[in-house]
């Protein structure tokens, strides 16, 4: 089954399209203290994704919270080739967005259906940041 979601994306990236496996959390993310920037592994105790690795995944979450230094965590991950392949948010936030702008990570939000309801862990997901389109294969 193939589902297409339409919304708004970050434009002007060199490579706006990405394809990968979905990693979904219902919890918001504060990137500082959430993930080890050297490995991509989630280290925040009690977070739904604790122990998982966000590198190379299509990371799906509601919004960014907490520290305003979170952008640098994403940029450091991108610098080491360990960033998520793309980010899908229900509603984006400045800190996550700036991390995506500088780290060249495709990002979409404000989709016509709630991505946290539609996308499940392990789904094959294609993101087009330029067009704001998400395709999900179940």
């Amino acid at each position: 089954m193939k589902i297409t979601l339409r919304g708004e994306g970050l434009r002007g990236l060199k490579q706006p399209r990405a394809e990968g496996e979905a990693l979904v959390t219902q919890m918001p993310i504060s990137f500082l203290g959430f993930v080890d920037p050297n490995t991509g592994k989630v280290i925040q105790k009690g977070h739904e994704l604790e122990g998982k690795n966000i590198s190379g995944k299509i990371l799906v979450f509601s919004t960014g919270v907490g520290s305003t230094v979170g952008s640098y965590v994403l940029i450091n991950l991108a610098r080491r080739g360990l960033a998520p392949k793309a980010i899908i948010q229900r509603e984006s936030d400045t800190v996550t967005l700036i991390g995506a702008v500088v780290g060249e990570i495709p990002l979409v939000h404000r989709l016509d259906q709630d991505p946290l309801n539609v996308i499940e862990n392990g789904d094959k997901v294609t993101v087009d940041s330029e067009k704001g389109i998400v395709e999900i294969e179940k």
Partner: protein
Amino acid sequence: MYLNREEEKTLQGEYGESKRLAMKILCALGDFFHAEKLIRIESAHVSGVSYKTGGDALIDVLEKFAESRPKTAVVTSLNPSGMDRLRWREMGITDSFATKQNKIIELYQSMGVLSVCSCVPYELGNIAKSGHHVSFSESSAVTFMNSFLGAYTNRESGLSALASAIIGKTPEYGLHIPENRNPEVVVEIDAKLTSPTDYGVVGYSIGKNFGSKIPLLQKISHLNIQQAKQLSAAMAASGSISLFHTDSCTRKEFEEKTLEKMVIDQKHLDELKDSLDPTSQPDIIMIGCPHTSIGTLRRISELLKSPVSNRTQLWIFTSRPIKMIAGSMGYVQNIERMGARVFCDTCPVVSPMPEFELALTDSAKAAHYLPTMSKIESAVKPLEDCIKIATGERI
């Protein structure tokens, strides 16, 4: 986003690579969040200073920014770094960390960013009037500026705040627009809050419950600065609350009855406080998240009447200007004579801490970050109890 001719020229690189980069970031932000135009800001505050949190990516980005020697267009202050710039060896900081940390601070200074290295710029002259636009990062300062002073700022990332500082403008969206600042949820605080720490504990719970919504806090109308600091810091750490209202400062034109409501009663507060109690003797006690004010340093110097126990250490964090004033009054000497240390330029969250088992702090925000940032378990008590425990007194 609409750009005027000057802004367009900046984006084309006519005023140098640094300004082009700054404008590019502001345009990406403005386009993404549908800002109509850029608006002037009064001042800015930039986070992303500690080498621990920013890493090599931070140095890369700053080097690119500093390339064509831009100067900030407005007064811009800097957040805490990863170490006391004079006493870093006492904090167990390595030479290589110190070298990189100094380089980061020098890069900021080269752009005219004031190296106050503090998370409470509003105590050091970087303040704004109600309704004035600023561009602040450092989540606790964002919430304080919006809520206590009534200034208008989004929760900027360190990088977007720096871009705004260089251009002197920010995209007009989010909390810069008055209609977006109305309360979205109501929190009735039906409990006795007896210390600034209690405000932090309550704020932490609100942030956890409401994520990024704008709460109206009922039954706490006379908030003082210390209470507002803890409240702001905690709700911006567990959530991304960038603005709260209280009964006395709210805008009236909304229908309160239709809003979702949460009640924090005495039982709820007591349970929260119990869950944050230390379960064993802490080996480090940390005060100063957000940075300790001059009034609190005076209070600590009065409370600390006997030496710090040899089973624990007491570290107090503040900014260098405040430490200088406290030093001239003899507070720092009184505190350090008892075996405690007063560090500047850094804080419990962004400094690479030496190994400790259990940290006790008066800050819900510090307690939130210590376990993941420094692998130190954490507990929370009001300032007075922290000082008593530091000297081995029973509470």
